[in-house]
């Protein structure tokens, strides 16, 4: 492990020795309902941070704010020490922070290999005028293709190379999305519920891939609502409930934290959900916010 989290106290908002990503006073409301209200959060470089919380805790919204897919009402964030409040999602991706989506966004009518090639950064052929002159980008294209093939092999998708991504199974799509994100050689990868809707047989291999990312030195943040899933692989766990960060620490201590137990087992699971919560959960599961 590159930097040590063992000296860090287990309390929400605590500073880390080597943060790659920081968030301060981030707030987002939807029609009066507070979806996210995070005072302070730092993400340690080179480790796997799990962001967990019960349904409707604001995890996905927080993720959207982090990756600029949504704009906060207030707050600030930095990446590698630089402020990134004004950055568009694609700019963040180019800076090395990529994300996946809870509902996989595999580009169904592109082949698997085209999906992969799309992930590569700084492609000369993506300029309109250069694209008309293949010699200007042919060499780079072959390079990208070779890299894509390597990754496909690693993720055991190489036999699907020429198939439309739309023909893949749910688990294969998750793998493809992860592999595609890696094409850009990111320094941070944000995975939104990578295990959701995946056949249990594939879960283990997905988890192994996530660990593999960390071992390559990539910072991993992933959202998960099931606490059990994160037990094996997370180095650090951040718990959200009702939009706030209520606990931080290694999973051993998180499991014993009273606030976390309350959040998971408390009023929320006994009482029926309120209309707003139900709506939010449902829209969590709807594609592209097209409700």
């Amino acid at each position, binding site marked *: 492990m590159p930097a040590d989290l063992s000296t860090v106290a287990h309390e929400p908002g605590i500073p880390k020795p080597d943060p790659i990503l920081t968030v301060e006073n981030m707030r987002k409301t939807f029609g009066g309902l507070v979806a996210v209200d995070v005072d302070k959060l730092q993400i340690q470089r080179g480790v796997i941070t799990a962001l967990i919380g019960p349904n409707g805790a604001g995890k996905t919204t927080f993720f959207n704010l982090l990756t600029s897919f949504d704009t906060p009402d207030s707050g600030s964030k930095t990446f590698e020490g630089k402020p990134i409040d004004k950055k568009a999602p694609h700019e963040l991706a180019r800076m090395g922070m990529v994300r996946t989506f809870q509902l996989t966004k595999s580009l169904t009518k592109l082949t698997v290999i085209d999906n992969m090639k799309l992930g590569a950064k700084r492609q000369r052929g993506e300029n309109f005028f250069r694209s008309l002159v293949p010699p200007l980008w042919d060499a780079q294209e072959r390079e990208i293709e070779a890299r894509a093939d390597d990754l496909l092999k690693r993720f055991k998708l190489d036999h699907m190379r020429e198939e439309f991504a739309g023909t893949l199974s749910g688990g294969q799509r998750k793998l493809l999305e992860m592999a595609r994100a890696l094409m850009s050689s990111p320094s941070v990868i944000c995975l939104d519920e990578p295990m959701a809707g995946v056949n249990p047989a594939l879960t283990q291999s997905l988890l192994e891939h996530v660990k593999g990312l960390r071992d390559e030195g990539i910072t991993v943040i992933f959202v998960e609502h099931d606490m059990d899933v994160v037990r094996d692989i997370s180095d650090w766990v951040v718990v959200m409930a009702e939009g706030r960060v209520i606990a931080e620490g290694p999973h051993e201590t998180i499991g014993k934290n009273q606030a976390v137990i309350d959040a998971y087992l408390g009023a929320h699971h006994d009482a029926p959900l309120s209309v707003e919560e139900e709506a939010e959960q*449902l829209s969590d599961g709807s594609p592209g*916010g097209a409700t």
Partner: protein
Amino acid sequence: MGQLSALQRRFEGNDGQRRLIGLIMLVAAFVMSVPFPALGQESDQGVRVRLQYQDAESGENVPAVGVVFSVTQEDGTPVGDGATDDNGEFFLAVESAGRFNLTIDPTTLPAGVTLRDPERATLTVTVDAGRAASALFGLQSGEGGAGADESDTLRRVLQLTTEGIKLGLFLAMGAIGLSLIFGTTGLVNFAHAEMITWGMFIVFLVEGFAEGIGLLPDQKLLTIALGALAALVVGGATGWLMNRFVFAPLRRKGTPLISQMVVTIGFGILARYVILYFFGGSSRFFKSVSGQSAISIGVVDITPSDLIAVILSIVVLVIVGLLLQRTRIGRAMRAVSDNRDLAESSGIDVQRVISQVWSAGGALAALGGLFLAQADQVLWEGGFRVLLLIFAGVTLGGLGTAYGALVGCLLIGLGVQLSTLFIPIELKNVGALLVMAVVLLIRPQGILGRKERIG
């Protein structure tokens, strides 16, 4: 009965086969709107005036006969002149579209009749290609009325505001259905325009029928009331049928929304040109309301039929609002609009709600068609001409919200009319569409719309 014999003349050939075809066509007449011959006044490109005044003694509206008009181009070049006929009508064909000045010769008015506003002896009208432009001269019998010394601009503003509210209300009749259909299904229904046009022609056919059985010309009110009822029923049925046989199956098949939208475009084109095929491209007017002269309310002029239409549309819109707010069906509609999945999971029969929305949308659009046409004309592309204004209203208010549609349409109506204070009348729709673009820039979700959640 003249109606029937005319129909027979039309379809009776000299052999049995023709008769058979005629019979089939007669059966299809209700659906396909076979033209009833000798109906409506056809008009070409030109300037039209209907001159009537309220007789001081009998209180009835009587045509002003033999009143002389002269028409010039905007630059003063004479185009022609003429006098009103026995029906108080004057029509002068013009060769090219454009703006024309129409001047009445007050000395030729019947004895005791004067212009309500002597300063408005010359009116400027804009003739669109292939259309007749109507001008309204307010007449009065007896002594001079009020308003002559009012500030001219203020009066114009008030008049245009009235016109704007009127237009906005009529547009809203179509917009609410459009918006609810969008809200419940995500579909932008381009054929909504033709549902409006359909309403115009339903009433037109009812008038033809009324004339056939002798209701017209005496029972005007009854005729138009029957027409309105028919528009509601047939329009609603049309909406229901479209959903039942076209869009419900497409939804079941999982057809993408964009494909469904293209289908609505296909329907729009189909319906528009079927109407053109059978009715032709000329403007027609409702006989039961045409030729009314405006009455003055304060300083604002409005024809009685416009006034009734405005009141009715307010009543209908209030009823729709109450239905949406208070009844189970209405609440279900709003719930589905709000969050379809949530509504479905809480036990609402979404498909039934969608079916109801289509029926209500069809009925409202048809009634809106009647209102629009009584103020203007019955035309094969009457609905299509206002479709963009309705889109603008719906977009302004926020796609998918019924109240937004109403507010948006009122703003568009006012914008269209009041913009003529500053820009030429021929460009008034342009102004409204530009406003829509600007609002989209500032507030993409519309005035009453909510921001959506991503992810």
